């Protein structure tokens, strides 16, 4: 296939500036600099490029919210990739950093920003070396700095490192963290486009989203819309992990079915039968066999009460204990809850406690009802999406796998959970 994003798989050393330029690199930026800011925004709007971090908001629309001629504005790249099962931005930054830089520079030009930060999680250090070296090449070549590429536009660009907090992938938490505060979200409004970093208008875009921008500039919106579906155009990197033969990143055009994606990853490992899929890391509700023929689009899983999200597919085979899997996921959300709002802080704590006691054979039938009651106390009541996400593995696993919960309760202390297994979950 013709790669749009993971082009480094076909082009060796794409992370070097000269190689990137030999393959059309920074032509998109050049074209943008020859246009007005409004024309650039309109072009991206026309492509219907939607955010690849999971929310799917229109990228051009997001840029258009920035007040015109605001004196200080910022572009922040969200490379705080920390969702269980997600590892696409890391591959991009490590191997194709210039495409992300170019996309961010086009965004910065479009909104008139003089400063770009890439907020990268503090654990992605191999990616960090590649990105820092790419930035250095750009400074030396006049692509970043004063009057870039001979234009009258100047911009600075730096990397910022997080320090281990999933919540900083939420845009307002990311802004707080970059400002030197605890990475805790705020209740919108104000929206970052009006009051973001240092209370100035700010655009936060996902890494993969920005990597799409340069080629849209060069090839035009129609080229982009020819891929995928009308509502979900363009390429998408799908992260496939779990019980499959060939886990990894796969670049596809949206509209493929989940069953086709599973086949792409070599099918279930060891010829086992498919049991369940987490379609968006820990955040998207679990789906089962009937959803596999749905298309990978922003709306494709709506009939199955789930979402495409960031397209991080965790496949589980017939031997998977779904109460155990649910416990793993809720443990993650409890650990990563920032503690600012009560429904999420208390809710994730109790969800983990109750799932844990069911798993270890100390639960009762009433605990299953209790789980549903806790989730309804959280849904729609948390400050940000994390609290909402935390309820989805619980609600969806009870929906699809209630007999497994009941069996754990019925087995009671005679369940086959060993002390070693208990230690492993903790």
């Amino acid at each position, binding site marked *: 296939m013709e790669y749009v994003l993971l082009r480094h798989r076909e082009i060796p050393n794409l992370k070097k500036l000269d190689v990137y330029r030999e393959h059309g690199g920074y032509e998109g930026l050049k074209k943008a600099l020859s246009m007005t800011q409004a024309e650039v925004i309109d072009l991206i709007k026309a492509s219907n490029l939607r955010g690849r971090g999971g929310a799917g908001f229109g990228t051009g629309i997001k840029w258009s919210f920035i007040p015109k001629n605001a004196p200080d504005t910022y572009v922040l790249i969200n490379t705080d990739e920390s969702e269980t099962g997600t590892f696409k931005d890391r591959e991009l930054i490590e191997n194709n950093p210039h495409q992300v830089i170019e996309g961010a520079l086009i965004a910065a030009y479009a909104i008139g920003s003089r400063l770009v930060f890439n907020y990268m999680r503090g*654990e992605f250090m191999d990616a960090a070396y590649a990105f820092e070296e790419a930035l250095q090449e750009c400074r030396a070549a006049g692509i970043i700095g004063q009057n870039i590429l001979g234009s009258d536009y100047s911009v600075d660009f730096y990397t910022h490192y997080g320090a281990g907090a999933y919540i900083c992938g939420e845009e307002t938490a990311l802004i707080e963290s970059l400002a030197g505060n605890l990475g805790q979200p705020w209740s919108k409004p104000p929206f970052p486009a009006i009051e973001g970093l240092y209370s100035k208008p700010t655009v936060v875009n996902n890494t993969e989203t920005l990597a799409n921008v340069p080629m849209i500039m060069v090839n035009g919106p129609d080229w982009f819309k020819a891929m995928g579906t009308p509502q979900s155009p363009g390429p998408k990197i799908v992260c496939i992990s779990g019980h499959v033969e060939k886990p990894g990143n796969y670049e596809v055009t949206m509209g493929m079915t989940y069953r086709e994606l599973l086949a792409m990853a070599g099918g279930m490992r060891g010829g086992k039968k498919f049991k369940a899929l987490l379609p968006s890391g820990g955040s998207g509700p679990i789906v089962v066999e009937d959803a596999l023929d749905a298309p990978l689009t922003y709306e494709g899983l709506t009939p199955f009460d789930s979402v495409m999200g960031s397209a991080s597919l965790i496949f589980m085979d017939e031997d998977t204990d779904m109460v155990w899997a649910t416990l793993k996921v809720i443990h993650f959300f409890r650990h990563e809850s920032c503690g600012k709002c009560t429904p999420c802080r208390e809710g994730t704590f109790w969800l983990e406690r109750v799932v844990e006691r069911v798993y270890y054979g100390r639960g009762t039938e009433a605990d299953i009802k209790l789980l549903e009651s806790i989730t309804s106390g959280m849904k729609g009541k948390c400050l940000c999406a994390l609290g909402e996400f935390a309820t989805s593995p619980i609600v969806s696993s009870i929906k699809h796998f209630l007999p497994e919960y009941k069996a754990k309760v019925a087995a009671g202390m005679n369940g086959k959970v060993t002390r070693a297994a208990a230690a492993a979950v903790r």
Partner: protein
Amino acid sequence: MLREKYADEIDALLARFPQKKSAVLHLMHLAQNEYGYMSDEAMKEVAEILDLDPTHVMSLAGFYSLYYEEPVGKYVLEVCNDLACALRGADKFVEMASRKLDIPVDGTTNDGLFTLKTVMCLGACDRAPMLQCNLKFYENLDETKFDNMIADLRARAAEGDADPSVVERIFSYIK
């Protein structure tokens, strides 16, 4: 003192930000690299450079998982045992590592060389089991690779491990 030892890097770092408070996570990474963990003195030093209240730096040290509030071993082995890694054997890997190092999770070996931890997703789910050791990733691990890694780290420690740390390398880009 960090301010003297890394004068150029810190000046360059502070010049990046419209508000210098933004440099706090960077400086905490640097302080931990220097002192091994976020000791009270390390946090006070960071606070002083940025004119912050030391309690603010302490609250950040508690919030972000990469900062250690207690002393740790020279090499911190952080194994991801989140769902995606656990489906590919991460929990068994943790048990094996714990047995081989003869320490529980969160424990440190008597010689002070290794601390074993479990952590949330590190973004390498397709290469599980995996761990990060002082921010370097080791992927697609098994028992043999783990043994070799430990032997290699022991040998390096015995020679005084002069390799620049990940944080030092990152700061070299800032200067």
